[in-house]
């Protein structure tokens, strides 16, 4: 008996061991949870803390929180070409406080998802800016460009563990900026809502655009325009119409961003130009039936789309063009009406087909 008790003594107490083990684990997890909730780098619980140097570079993770927990009365939606606006431009040109909720390569369902998040906030929308990639509107109604981290989008509080104890959240979005805030207190910070206001490391200019441009294979059989009617109608019904009708007091600014002439030429080469333009036509027909909708054919700004010096590839342009986009919307330079929209489309078609790269 004595030797057994000595042996046990030597081995230590299991219950004390377990108590220390679980206390350590519990204490650290609690601390991390509190840290993440207080700083809230994905804005799931509150608006950005004033002066904290947030790292904002992940649309999928940070857009839903920005949509739900910041104060604004305008939303900017769309794909990558809608990311680099300064929110001050919306204030200056339209007198609204905007939040940007872009999703690279966004499909209509991505736009609907973003609006759903915005609708969960208490903000009353006065304006919604939507950059339209017509080619995406014939996708499946449920198609999204990237899988969403659902725990940041749903209402289930239990799966927030994925947020509290996420190593990337802790290292990149909490510890690193926290260290920065502590080491460089008082350093001026950009407005967190103004994120993505420029893309770093991008090269602009005609030479660069032409060096990266790939025309792709010439199509022998162009896509019949009528084939996209059904998917477009489904997207309209599922993702676009409900958005318009649930915000009767907001003005919707749908605009076709000025993609370069190379983009349109590429569509023509690949046999999809007629289908995409038909898609635009159908969409505009639907949109113009609403009083709270404006449609802007910025792709018809020939001066912009033919000057490749402001582009980094056939699609993406620099911030000066982004500013111009908002100015043209504001001025109504290419505003569509039921009388002129077909002319806009026809002009673009002729331009693309006549273009020689």
């Amino acid at each position, binding site marked *: 008996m004595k030797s057994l008790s000595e042996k046990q003594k030597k*081995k230590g107490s*299991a219950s*004390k061991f377990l108590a*220390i*083990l679980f206390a350590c684990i519990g204490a650290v*997890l609690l601390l991390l949870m509190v840290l993440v909730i207080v700083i809230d780098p994905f804005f799931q619980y509150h608006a950005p803390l004033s002066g904290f140097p947030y790292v904002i570079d992940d649309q999928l993770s940070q857009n839903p929180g920005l949509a739900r927990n910041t104060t604004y009365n305008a939303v900017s939606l769309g794909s990558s070409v809608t990311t680099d606006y300064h929110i001050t431009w919306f204030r200056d040109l339209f007198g609204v406080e905007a939040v940007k909720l872009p999703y690279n390569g966004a499909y209509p369902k991505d736009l609907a998802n973003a609006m759903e998040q915005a609708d969960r906030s208490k903000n009353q929308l006065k304006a919604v800016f939507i950059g339209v990639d017509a080619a995406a509107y014939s996708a499946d109604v449920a198609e999204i460009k990237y899988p969403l981290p659902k725990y940041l989008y749903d209402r289930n509080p239990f799966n927030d563990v994925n947020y509290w*104890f*996420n190593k*990337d959240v802790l290292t990149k979005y909490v510890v*690193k900026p926290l260290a920065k805030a502590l080491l460089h207190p008082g350093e001026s910070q950009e407005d967190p809502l103004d994120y993505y206001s420029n893309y770093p490391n991008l090269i602009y200019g005609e030479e660069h655009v032409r060096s990266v441009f790939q025309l792709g294979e010439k199509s022998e059989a162009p896509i019949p325009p009528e084939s996209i009617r059904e998917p477009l109608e489904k997207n309209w019904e599922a993702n676009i119409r409900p958005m318009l009708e649930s915000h009767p007091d907001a003005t919707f600014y749908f605009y076709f961003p000025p993609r370069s002439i190379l983009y349109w030429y590429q569509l023509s080469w690949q046999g999809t130009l007629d289908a995409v333009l038909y898609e635009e036509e159908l969409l505009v027909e639907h949109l113009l039936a609403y009083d709270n909708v404006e449609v802007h054919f910025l792709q018809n700004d020939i001066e912009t789309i033919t000057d490749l010096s402001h582009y980094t590839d056939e699609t993406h342009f620099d911030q000066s063009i982004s500013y111009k986009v908002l100015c043209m919307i504001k001025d109504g330079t290419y505003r569509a009406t039921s009388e002129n929209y077909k002319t806009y489309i026809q002009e673009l078609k002729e331009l693309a087909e006549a273009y020689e790269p």
Partner: protein
Amino acid sequence: MLFNSYVFLLLFLPLTIIGYFGLNHFQKPQLAKGFLLGMSLWFYGYFRPSYLLILIVSILGNYALYRFLKFPNRKQSLRKTVMIFGVLLNVGTLGYFKYLDFLFKELNLILHTDIPLLGILLPLGISFFTFQQLGFVIDSYRGETGNYSFLDYALFVSFFPQLVAGPIVTHGEMIPQFQDPSKKRFQTDNFAKGCVYFILGMSKKLLLADAFGRAVDYAWMTIDYLAPADVLIASLSFYLQIYFDFSGYSDMAIGLGKMLNLDLPVNFDSPFKAITIADYWKRWHVTLTRFFTKYVYIPLGGNRRGVARTYLNTFLVFLISGIWHGAGTGYILWGISGGIGLIVCKALASLLEKIRKNKLGAAFLWFLTAAYVSIFFSFFRAEDAGLGLQFFARLLPSVSAGAHGILSDIPKVMFDFSGLGYTMQRVQAPLCVLFYAMALLIAIRMPNVREIVFHFRYTALQAIGLAILFLLCFLSLSGVATYIYFNF
């Protein structure tokens, strides 16, 4: 449900422990067993609810066979027929889910036919629970099974720690434990040991195996750019990955069993320490070797029918093992390689024994064994033998001439320091070398988890160390890899 998931760690496991011991505490042992069965089915169904149907039908069918075979006064010939039927039924089920599409694909390739593939989804862990039940049916025929209730049997098959990736347990080692009243009370010592097992196993899986996994995936993705040195590193990396992954999973399973006062068998006994291939097979996936020995090797005659037959039996066992591991020619080649290695060891047993007595000789044999195992495991990773050969062809200078290699990329692939700034990124490469050295040291020189637990002392320092390991694992749960062995 994965062991390394929030839902398992924060909900399933606490609920299971509290529910099981709580019901036993209130003298409801049958209900407690039923609760454990229910939790195990939830664990399995969490992956895909439709899988549950296959598991339940399989349990019901095999239990019916058992009842028939247990019934006294049955004619021997009828019993044998029923046993064979049971074996065929289990093998047939496995064959249908695991190999039919593979067979069609190969036939289409060889005969230039166009047999449509059925797109059958492989239920997780089917290889494991089918083998367990196969052994049970054979044992029932042999009269080696006791009187088991349906609840005991169903729990034996579906007990969640071992359900999807083993260890392959026998009814004889599990059901008596389910029935043992002394195991129904919460025991702090067992629970603590279980925690140690579980945390160390999870650390092997998440902190070691997954890092090697990223390097391996990268190498196989960039196969056309590999230089000879990359092939060697990738082979070693996969051997390390699969060892830490699979043995880590087994340790977690054993730990979970231990928390519930249930002992699961050892599945890995430091295979990296093996001096010869024969030694290796005694240490790697021990419960599978045990299964094949009992149900295939010995019925084929084992070593009782002369040398040539012994070698043939060995070869057949490994061929079957290769096929069992997966539907792919790479697995078959892996099995065959393992078998040939063992046969050579058997043939040269006395010579090897002499060499290993010398320290240098033993080191040489160890190196040969590790190299050989790394090579045949690469075919396992390839799944397709052709791809495996393409991988090893990169060793030939004529094939890999001009390839710049991927060695310099591996640190970045293994450790993502992108969020931590330039200073940390600069130390990636030396850290990576250290990481390999540490992993090899753990695998070759350090005691394994079973040995660690056996000699474990409950000190505050140990508790803090384990808490740190757990936290590192817990914080890495976002975006972790799935277990390699779930598909077998």
